[in-house]
Structure formats: structure tokens, C-alpha cells
């Protein structure tokens, strides 16, 4: 034990001074008078995977990269390296400058920003940065040991990151922020393969993730989901757990690009021209916000270009308030560019999941979705399947496990068919179990959700 501890070190990443020194050194290699931008990113990443109640693989690595964006008049080239010695940095600058000289003039060229003021980043946790391989193995054991004792099969993944991002340019702009991220997800199955349950959490602060509780929840779902029965596909009233809501609602956030909307190739395009800003598109109880300084969904205080991030209200009381404008499109349209940082928080209500179930005569409870892929961008229509805990609700009670179902539906339609909303919580909504973007959403009860076929997969 002590040997393992002694090898542990707190996460390695570049300090503000180190990052600034590297950025300056890189900018010093720039030969063109037209300036350049340098992004310096460094992070330690650690992960532990487990399968069949034991650790299967793990990994620890540290990497730092420098990305040089060079200009030649209105021409741009970019190059990234992870070799931060002088030779490596010089080579990256030369490559970027060479590419810039070869590029055609960019009609949408935007000059580098002047120095900016930034808020203090909040997405840092010492608990996350200090988690070492043994700490990860202990967290895993809090899931595998009880699963093993109760004759279940646990599988899962713990992923932590601690690092720093910096951006600098020739005008003197410099920004630096540290961030951490952690995600723990587990799938617990019955040994006969007839039941499967999932639980997961994602937060920048490892101390907010309770491994034993996640393991217990997944185990309970695995037991309850045994021997599922087939039901007819069709339209159902559905109680969506928060993870399932996060799985779908994030696609609305991905579709918020103003330019695509103005160009007529988005759900947010308006028939006849223009976009849907000012149009009511979902239930008035729905508000969608990105706020990098909200401690619940904290993100980076700046963008890769060095823009300060700030709160963006996308949809307020069901009405589209703004869309995502990059600097060029904002200038063209005479509005301020957005720089939201990418997190997402949805408004909620006061109905508990238990109350949603109790008020449902016949419906389904969905734990989460899998293999979500776009089918039609015109309506943000997606297909995908339920997974790891799908249950039938009859006369206000969960009566049995049902087989998984494929749906073809849109989160926009879903948010128009709202019956009830619960308290928003942080979810792990990424497909691959990595930390993904910070998402906080409520459980929802929705009518007429469109399931199109049945799956035998458990």
C-alpha cells in the first residue's frame, strides 16, 4: 500500500506562470507582423475501468499541447504540437505560418481580440486533482464488492481530469484557468443476463460523487429489470429520469447555431426567412440557460479565442431568446457574439418522480437512452433506444420491467408535451461515460412519446 501511495502525485498541469512563459516563448518565434494566437493546454488524466466485478484496465497520462494560430494578412493557419521544447514550438509556429501563407484570403476574417477582463473560473476541485490510482481502485471496490456479494455483475468506468487552459495573443491578451472533471458510471447486470441497471454521475468535484450509492442504485435497477415483458410500440406517457432528459435536451443546445438558422438549414430557421428568435417553440415552463459561473454547471471563463464567457439564456418561458453567434456572424448581424461556455441548465418544477408515477394511469419509466443519432435536422428528430431500466407504470405504480424500445421523436416535441417537471440535478449524459458537458436537468413526465419498435436487448 505505502509503495503505491508514495508514487502518487497530485495532478500535474502547467501553472499560470509556466503557461504564460510558454505562450510568450512561442509568440517570440512568430516572424509575421500580422500576429498570432497561442493556446496552451495541459492536463493529467486518470481512469480505471472495471468489468465482471474486477478492474480490467486503467491508465494515467499527462500531456500538454501548444496550438499556434498564425496570420498572414487575412489568411490563417493552425498547428498543434505536444513537444514544448524550442525546436517543437518553433516547428509549430513555422507550420502555422506556412499554412497561413498558402491559404486564400478569408472574407470572414476576424482580427484577434484586445486584452479582456475575465471572471474567476469555478470548475476546480482539489478532491478531483488528488484522486490517485489507489483512490480510484477503492471507489471501484465500493461498487464491485457489494455487487459481487449479492451475486450481481458490475462493470463501469471512472474518469478524472485536472488541467489548465491558457490563451495568449500578440495584442497582450492572456487568460488562464484551471478545471477539473470527474465521471463515474456503472452498469450492473444479473448473472443470467436478464436484468441490467445503470447509474452515473458527473461533476467537477469528485467529493460530490458517491460511488457506493451509484453502485446500489444500479444494482437495484438490475434486480428490478429482470425478465422484462414485451409491450406494443406506440405513443406512451413517459416518466423520464433526469439522465434520460439530459440525453435528449442536449440536442436542442447543439442546434442553437444562429448562422445555420439564418441560412435555412436548422430547426431554428423560420419559414419564409430568418430565424425563430422571439418564437415560442416549447412549453412555457421551459427555460434553458448556459452559465459558466453557475457553481452547479461551472465551466471555463473564456473561449479558445479569448472571449470572456457569460450567461446565455437560449429559451425563456418557452420562447427562443437568443441563438449562438460566433464573432463573424454577430458582426454581420449587428448583435453581440455569444460565448456561453457550453454548459446547460434547464428549469424544473416541484413534482417528484414518485408523484409523477402515482399520477400515471398507464405509462413507462425510462432510466436513460442509448445510441442516439440524428434522423432529421429539420425537426431535431432523433432515434435511439431505452437502456438499463425501463419499467411499465400501471394505475400509479411500477408493475413490471418491459423490454427496451426504440423511439423516433424530437426533444422539441417532448418539451411541448410536458405534464410535470421535478427538481433539476446534475447528470452524466454523455454517451461514452466521460465527463462530457455540465448538464443539469429535471425529471419530466411527458405524454405521447413515440416508440417505434421493440428490442430484445438487455
Amino acid at each position, binding site marked *: 500500500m505505502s509503495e503505491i501511495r508514495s508514487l502518487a502525485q497530485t495532478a500535474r498541469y*502547467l501553472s499560470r506562470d509556466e503557461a504564460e512563459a510558454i505562450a510568450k516563448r512561442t509568440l517570440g518565434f512568430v516572424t509575421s507582423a500580422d500576429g498570432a494566437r497561442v493556446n496552451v493546454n495541459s492536463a493529467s488524466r486518470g481512469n480505471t475501468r472495471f468489468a465482471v466485478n474486477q*478492474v480490467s484496465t486503467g491508465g494515467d497520462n499527462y*500531456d500538454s499541447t501548444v496550438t499556434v494560430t498564425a496570420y498572414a494578412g487575412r489568411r490563417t493557419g493552425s498547428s498543434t504540437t505536444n513537444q514544448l*521544447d*524550442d525546436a517543437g514550438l518553433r516547428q509549430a509556429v513555422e507550420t502555422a505560418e506556412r499554412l497561413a501563407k498558402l491559404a486564400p484570403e478569408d472574407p470572414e476574417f476576424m482580427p484577434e481580440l484586445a486584452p479582456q477582463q475575465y471572471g474567476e473560473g469555478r470548475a476546480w476541485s482539489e478532491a478531483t486533482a488528488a484522486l490517485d490510482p489507489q483512490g480510484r481502485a477503492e471507489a471501484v471496490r465500493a461498487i464491485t464488492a457489494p455487487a459481487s456479494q449479492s451475486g450481481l455483475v458490475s462493470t463501469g468506468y471512472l*474518469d478524472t481530469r485536472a488541467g489548465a487552459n491558457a490563451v495568449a495573443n500578440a495584442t497582450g491578451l492572456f487568460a488562464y484557468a484551471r478545471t477539473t472533471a470527474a465521471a463515474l458510471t456503472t452498469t450492473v447486470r444479473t448473472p443470467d443476463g436478464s436484468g441490467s441497471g445503470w447509474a452515473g454521475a458527473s461533476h467537477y468535484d469528485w467529493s460530490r460523487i458517491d460511488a457506493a450509492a451509484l453502485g446500489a442504485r444500479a444494482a437495484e435497477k438490475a434486480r428490478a429489470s429482470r425478465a422484462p415483458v414485451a409491450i406494443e410500440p406506440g405513443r406512451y406517457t413517459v416518466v423520464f429520469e433526469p439522465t434520460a432528459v439530459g440525453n435528449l435536451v442536449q440536442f436542442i443546445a447543439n442546434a442553437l447555431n444562429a448562422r445555420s438558422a439564418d441560412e435555412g438549414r436548422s430547426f431554428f430557421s423560420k419559414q419564409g426567412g430568418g430565424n425563430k428568435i422571439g418564437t415560442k417553440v416549447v412549453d412555457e415552463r421551459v427555460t434553458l440557460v448556459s452559465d459558466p459561473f453557475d457553481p452547479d454547471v461551472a465551466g471555463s471563463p473564456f473561449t479558445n479565442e479569448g472571449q470572456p464567457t457569460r450567461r446565455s439564456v437560449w429559451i425563456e418561458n418557452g420562447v427562443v431568446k437568443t441563438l449562438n453567434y460566433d464573432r463573424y456572424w454577430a458582426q454581420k448581424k449587428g448583435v453581440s457574439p455569444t460565448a456561453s461556455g457550453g454548459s446547460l441548465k434547464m428549469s424544473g418544477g416541484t413534482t417528484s418522480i414518485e408523484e409523477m408515477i402515482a399520477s400515471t394511469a398507464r405509462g413507462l419509466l425510462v432510466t436513460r437512452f442509448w445510441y442516439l443519432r440524428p*434522423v432529421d435536422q*429539420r425537426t431535431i428528430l432523433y*432515434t435511439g433506444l431505452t437502456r438499463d431500466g425501463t419499467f411499465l407504470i400501471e394505475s400509479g405504480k411500477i408493475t413490471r420491467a418491459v423490454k427496451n424500445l426504440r423511439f423516433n421523436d424530437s426533444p422539441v416535441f417532448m418539451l411541448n408535451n410536458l405534464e410535470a417537471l421535478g427538481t433539476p440535478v446534475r447528470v452524466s449524459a454523455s454517451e461514452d461515460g466521460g465527463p462530457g458537458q455540465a448538464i443539469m436537468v429535471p425529471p419530466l413526465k411527458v405524454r405521447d412519446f413515440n416508440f417505434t419498435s421493440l428490442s430484445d436487448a438487455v
Partner: protein
Amino acid sequence: MGSSRREFVKTTSTAAAMLAGLAAVPSSARAALLQQGATLDLSDPDLKPLAQLGLDAARSAGASYADIRFNRNRTQALFTREQRVQGLVDNETLGFGIRALVNGAWGFAASRDITRDEIARVARQAAAQARANSLTLVRPVVLAPATAVKDGVWRTPIEIDPFSVSVEDKVGLLLAANAAALKQGARFVNSNMFFLREEKTFASTDGSYIVQTIYRAQPSVTVTAVAPDQSDFQTRQSNEIAPMGRGYEHVRDAKLVENAPRWASEAVQKLSAKPVDVGRYDLVLHPSHLWLTIHESVAHPTELDRALGYEANYAGTSFVAPPAAVLGKLKYGSALMNIRGDRTQPGSLSAVGWDDEGVKPESFDIIKNGLFVDYQTTREQAPFLADYYRAAGRPVRSHGCSYSQSWADVQFQRMPNVSLLPGDKEQGWDDLIAATDRGIAIVGDGSFSIDQQRYNAQFGGQLFYEIRGGKIVGMLKDVAYQMRTPEFWGSLDMLGGRKSYLLGGAFNDAKGQPMQANAVSHGCVPSRFRNVNVINTGRKA
């Protein structure tokens, strides 16, 4: 290169010794001592003693087996839209990773700093992590034997190194293709090129030392047509131009400028295509579409780690399980269905000399005349099938399916090329359409989704044509088919012949946690499937 490399090893060993344990030393100071990092040649024989140092350090730290992989990935990406270049990006990442087996458990650690002391430290870190991981050990890892490869060298046989072609030429070609599409009625057009060179030097405590250079290339075009009143938009992706394990000759052969007007016309035509009537249809699937259906419904479920539950938390498990119940017994599809795994097809994305465990891949049958006969395996997986192989009089050995995307990631089982073999009769796309009374012909892959055990899938496409009485009578839109894997493959009743065989493929197949991207090709021929369930995906916003 040789002499500077030798100098590098000498100076850095002293320098690194000075730095040992001094995590607080600024990078600038560290970096000043590592001048050769960016130009390090991974085929330089002087790398060998460094590799040995890592293996020895892992052994000293208790590893019963270890391997080390030095890896440099260089990529170049070009993005354009209409007459504008959106991005020209060169990336390079260099480092090494060490995998150590201690008490039957794996550990893996990696670093970008290629110095003697860092290699020794990372080796100890991997071994210590393996020891920590062994705390939960239930079944120790056992490796199937592998032949030691002394000084193996392999290189993708390319004609033109994509990194030697000027950026002006590449940009010129993309903008010319865009102009051709715009002239033909496209409202928007995006076109890209992506190139990768993967240099890997692998060494293991089994005595292998292998140097490989792998190239991949993908040009692509997406055309968007918009109805004048913004009531509809349709896209056409050039995805019959597959990503390939080739050089710039792949871009040349793709004839983007010549093809762009057709892609634009097809996007425009989709605006006025007839919405499909839901129902059951015979499907005639083009190889540019079918490769993805093979990928999802055949290649993934026959990965042994999935079948054993190792990927249950993300990619999922498999309906092709448990192995003892299905090997040689499961009827996967009709007798026309023959599926083979390989890493040798010229131009394929998975082609290599040796896998990331130093195993020479073999071509192997996965499905023979409709019957499931084998899984994709690595060295730690093959022993799980020992009884089956012994009963068949076959050796217990890996099929060579180990892969890692970079120095920072641990290698694990990834699919090789998994391909549908041609039929005996020499016939093609037109022959299959002529033989079909009521059906839909589908070109190009589109939307795709499949459950975590690979039973229930839904696929879209790029172009859909209605077949009536052996003839194409018009274009359809909003088409997707839903299938249950064994029934779908059971309905296969016509196959194209050898001359109609094409490779499709994916550059970024996702699997594992942390997720890693694998590049893989799937060869196939035009094929017909009977009585498949088709839905209409169009809705009003």
C-alpha cells in the same frame, strides 16, 4: 538522424537525472534540455535501448509481461465551405505508453517526455497501477502465445505521401469542387480533407521489436439544398468516397470536381422526392450503404470482449453470447452470408503488419455459410475460447485485433476489417434491381442506431430509389428501415459477384472507456434483403 539521436540519448539521460523528482521545475527549463523531442525518428535503431530500458524497469517493478509503444500521430485537416477556407490545421502528438501485467492485472501509464528517466518512471507507474488494480482481481489475465518478431518493419504501401502535397493544391481542389456544386444548384457546400500518419514502434518482453508507419486519407463533400421558402432542406454527403488506408492518390481517384455537380443535383432532387409510404419492402443495398449495416450488426457483436461483458458499461454486450452456446451453433443469417475478418486488404483502414501486441493478424472466418464460427480476439482473449479451438484442432492464438489510437491510450480489442464475401454468380447492382418487383434501393450511409446487444437497428441513407417491376421509378425521401439482426441477415437472398465488391469504412469507430477511435474498412457487394420494415421519418416542426 542517427548521430543526433545518440547525442539526444546521452544528454537527456544526464539532464533527466538532474530533474528526477523535481515536478516544480518549469517546463521551459525542462524543455530546454530536450531539444530533439520534436524531431525524434521512431525508426532510429537508437530507440531500441530506450525501449529495453522501459521493459526492464517494468520487470524490475514486478511485471511478468510488459510492452512499450512509442507513437507519433501527425494529422492534417482542411475545411472549406463555398469559396472560403474555414481551417487549415496540422497536429502532431508524440509520446510513449507502457503496459505492465502484475499479479495477472493490467496497468498502463504514458508520457510525452521521451527520456530515460521518464521511461523508467512511467514503467514503475504502470506496474504500481497494475498492483493497485489487482486488489479486485477475480480472474488473472493469461496471454495466448505469440511469436517474437525481431525487427519487424511495415509501411502502408502508398503512392503519394499526403503530407508532401502542397496545401495550395489541396485547397484549390476543394474550392473547385465547391464551385462545381454551387453551379449545379447547391445552396451550401462543405468539403474537407483529412490525412493521418501513424508512426509506431513497439517492443515487448516477449522479444518483439516492430516499427510501422500507417497512412489514412479521407476527402469528403457535403452539399445542402434549401427550398426557396426555407420550408425544407436536404443534404447529400459524398460517402461513397470511403476513408481508406491510402495516400493522396485516394483524393486524386475520388474525382471530387467531376462528382460534385451530381451530388448537388441529387441534393436538389431530394427536395421534391416522394415521402415514402411505410410498409415492408425488399431492399437492394449498395456497398456504400451496406458497409455500415455490417459494421453495426455483424462486426460489433462478434467482438469477444463484448460477448464476455467487458464493454457492458458503454458499447454494450452482445446477443452472440455466451461463447460456448453460439460458437459453431448460432445461425446468423442465410447460407449466402460469409463474413471474414482481415487486416491485409490493400487500401483498407485496418491493414497493418502486426497489431499493437506484436501479433501478425490472420484472415479468419467469422460467419461461414450463415453459421457463426469465430470471434475477434486479442492475446488475453483467445484463451477464453481454448476449449472450442482445441476441439476443432486449431491453435489457441490471437487473431491480431489489438489496437490503440495513440501513445496515451491502452491497447485493447478493436475490430479488423470485417467483410461480406461476394457471391459465386457474377452479377451487380443493376441485376439486383432488375430482379426486384417492389422494393427500395439505398445508396450511401445515413442515420444509424443499434441497441447495446446489437439486435434492433435503424438505418437511413443518402439516396433512396423506388423499385417497381425491376426498374427504378423515382426518388423517395424520409426513409429508414428497422431490423432485428438475425432476421435481417436471414432474409439475404441475392449477392453481387466479385466485380461489384467495394470497401466502405469508418475513420472514427468509437469503443472503450476512455473512448478510443479505430479506423476500419468493410468490404461488401450489392445485396438484397427481403421484406424489411420501412418507416417514414418526416415530421412537421
